[in-house]
């Protein structure tokens, strides 16, 4: 079988008229013999066609000409006899197990990336962002949010003073980047607090009222909530979240590609949910540490959780959408703050 000729047709790139050629292999050289003479190509540098079920084989030569063979059986027998091998990726796809192994590996890879690699890469990227840029990003975002959704606090001067008094022990431990604002939020937001990248912390009037005591003071749990938000700031959860979301979206886009944009949102949302649960735990740990340093009993946070669940009972807020993700089960958090 060695040095056997294979008859095929050849298009020279100038004319659409097919010309009969015979192919033969001499060592590592492919000879293409036409009516006018022979051309030689290094066999290893050619991209040999894939052994598909189609009956036509075509070999694209580096000078732009094309060899065509209308009988794939003859072609495949000839290439096999000369031990011509397709590229490794092509051979891999042609094996029985290859594509299945690839699929399995795709899911393993996707899971590992999402679970371990992305968070690390995103966190490293977030470390590169200077604190000033982070602060600018957070502040400009807050300016926009404030204008759109918030009104100035409707609490009386005395109530506001009481709130800041309750938070004072924690504030004295916090850096200058931490700035606290009281605001009247939209009704659906309810008793709430959140932190923006760079240190802006917002507490809603409803939260202050929730923790107000009959004697006009505010329960020290408010300091705990503040400490929790400071935890988000020091761990840079906002910025890290932005990077993680972007990275997950990019990776999903790579897999699904094209116009399945909405499908790509789902994994992003799940990633966000999981990362934020992790973030809440980190912030809780920081809250506990700060409270102990400020000599506030961490157990006072239990009061916050009970008040909150009382207030939320029967309330029409988007708790499902938030609760789906945001906070680890309250019971778990209560246990965390109750431990000695």
């Amino acid at each position, binding site marked *: 079988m060695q040095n056997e000729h294979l008859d095929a047709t*050849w*298009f*020279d*790139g*100038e*004319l*659409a*008229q*097919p010309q009969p050629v015979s192919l033969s292999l001499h060592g590592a050289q492919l000879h293409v013999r036409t009516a006018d003479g022979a051309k030689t190509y290094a066999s290893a540098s050619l991209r040999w*066609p*894939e052994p*598909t*079920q*189609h009956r*036509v084989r*075509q070999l*694209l030569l*580096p*000078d*732009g*000409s*094309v060899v*065509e063979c209308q009988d794939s059986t003859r072609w495949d027998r000839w290439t096999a006899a000369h031990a011509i091998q397709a590229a490794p*990726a*092509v051979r*891999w*796809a*042609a094996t029985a197990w*290859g*594509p299945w192994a*690839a*699929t399995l*590996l*795709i*899911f393993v*890879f*996707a899971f590992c*990336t999402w679970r371990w690699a992305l968070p690390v890469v995103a966190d490293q990227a977030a470390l590169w962002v200077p604190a000033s840029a982070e602060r600018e*990003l957070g502040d*400009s975002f807050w300016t*926009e949010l404030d*204008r*759109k959704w918030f009104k100035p606090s409707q609490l009386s001067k005395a109530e506001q003073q009481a709130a800041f008094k309750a938070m004072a022990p924690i504030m004295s431990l916090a850096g200058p980047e931490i700035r606290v604002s009281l605001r009247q939020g939209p009704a659906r937001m309810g008793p709430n607090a959140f932190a923006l990248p760079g240190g802006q912390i917002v507490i809603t009037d409803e939260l202050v009222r929730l923790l107000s005591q009959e004697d006009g003071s505010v329960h020290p749990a408010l300091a705990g909530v503040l400490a929790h938000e400071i935890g988000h700031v020091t761990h840079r959860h906002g910025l890290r979240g*932005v990077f993680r979301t*972007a990275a997950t979206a990019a990776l999903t886009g*790579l*897999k*699904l590609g*094209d*116009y*399945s*944009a*909405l*499908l790509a949102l789902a994994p992003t949302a799940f990633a966000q949910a999981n990362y934020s649960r992790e973030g809440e735990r980190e912030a809780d740990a920081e809250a506990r540490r700060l409270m102990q340093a400020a000599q506030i009993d961490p157990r006072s946070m239990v009061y916050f959780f009970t008040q909150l669940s009382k207030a939320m009972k029967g309330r*029409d*807020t*988007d*708790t*499902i*959408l938030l609760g789906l993700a945001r906070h680890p089960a309250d019971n778990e958090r209560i246990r965390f703050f109750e431990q000695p």
Partner: protein
Amino acid sequence: MKNWRPAELQFTAQGAEYARLWQVNLLLTLLTLGLYRPFAKARKLQYLYAHTGFDGHPLAFHGNPWRMLGGYLVMLTLFTLYSASTYAKPMVYLAAAVLLALLWPALWRSGLRYRLGHTSWRGLRFGFAGSVVGAYRAMLPWVLPPVFYGVSVVHFAPNTLLGELPKLPTWVWVLNAVVAFGSIPLGLAWVKRYQNNGYRFAGQAAKLEMKDASFFRLGTQVFFLSILALLMALAVIAVVKLVSGAWLSETEQRFLFFVLWWVAIYLVVLVGGAAQFAAGTQNIVWNATHSEDVRFRSFLDAPGYAALQLKNWSLVALTLGLYRPFALISAQRMRLEAIRIELADEPAQWTRTPGMGRTGTKGEMSGDFFGLDLGW
């Protein structure tokens, strides 16, 4: 009088065969963090072109993946910078968007030249002869809506901050919508005309002769069909809501409603509407394209194609993406099998377009430094 004869267009790719290729391509792309993508694309195109036979001979894709890597890296850099700018201040984002819009027509033309210049049939290369100026002119209608919007904002709500919804009078909003509904189909018509008039093969120039109005008609048709479908979906969701009231709390119901509504929008607009529009576009464009010795007809059934795509994308979602290669092949098959081609000449007599490249010759040297290959 010319003697026209039908020529066969055969699509012999198979979903299962392509799926093997796709799975390995995807794995290697992921493992190389995207760098393998041009190689994957070259292989995919080689497979699809080699399995698209016309008049007994397959097409061939000659693109060199190492060259395509250069073009891919350029595009990757541009889009990474653009995506990064969405997190920056609105002014930076606006500047990036304008810059990308300014570059886009030239990049798009470069991509067309690369793809056509590396596609052959019977050894003869296709070519794309559209000019750079022409590419910018073709996309001009698409500049109108953002410019008109900008002017309305400056005139009626000059104090609007970037990134905020301006307070415009209702009639100005309506006018903006009218401008958008007018310009988008018009731009599509111009783009398709530029594209198909630029195709060259064997010394023949393709000609697209159609009215811009056909795209307005198509756009209006798809728009009203989508509205109708959304209303029907809304009715179904309302019934579901009513019936489910017995078991679900109000918040749970609202959540269910929210999810169903987004699924409906996705299926109706992004899958169904887009498929109808693509089918209509194919029919309009290919029924009006011909060259000296080649003429085309396209009879793609729009509802049938939309139904196929709905099935495809539902299965893609249900199989976590694994059905994607099968979906691609079946959609491509339906699109290609709807096309009829007639020849007036014996193609064996055709010769290369003078000046249109073979590898290493003028066409490639002068045109595209990077192997910029856009699209799928």
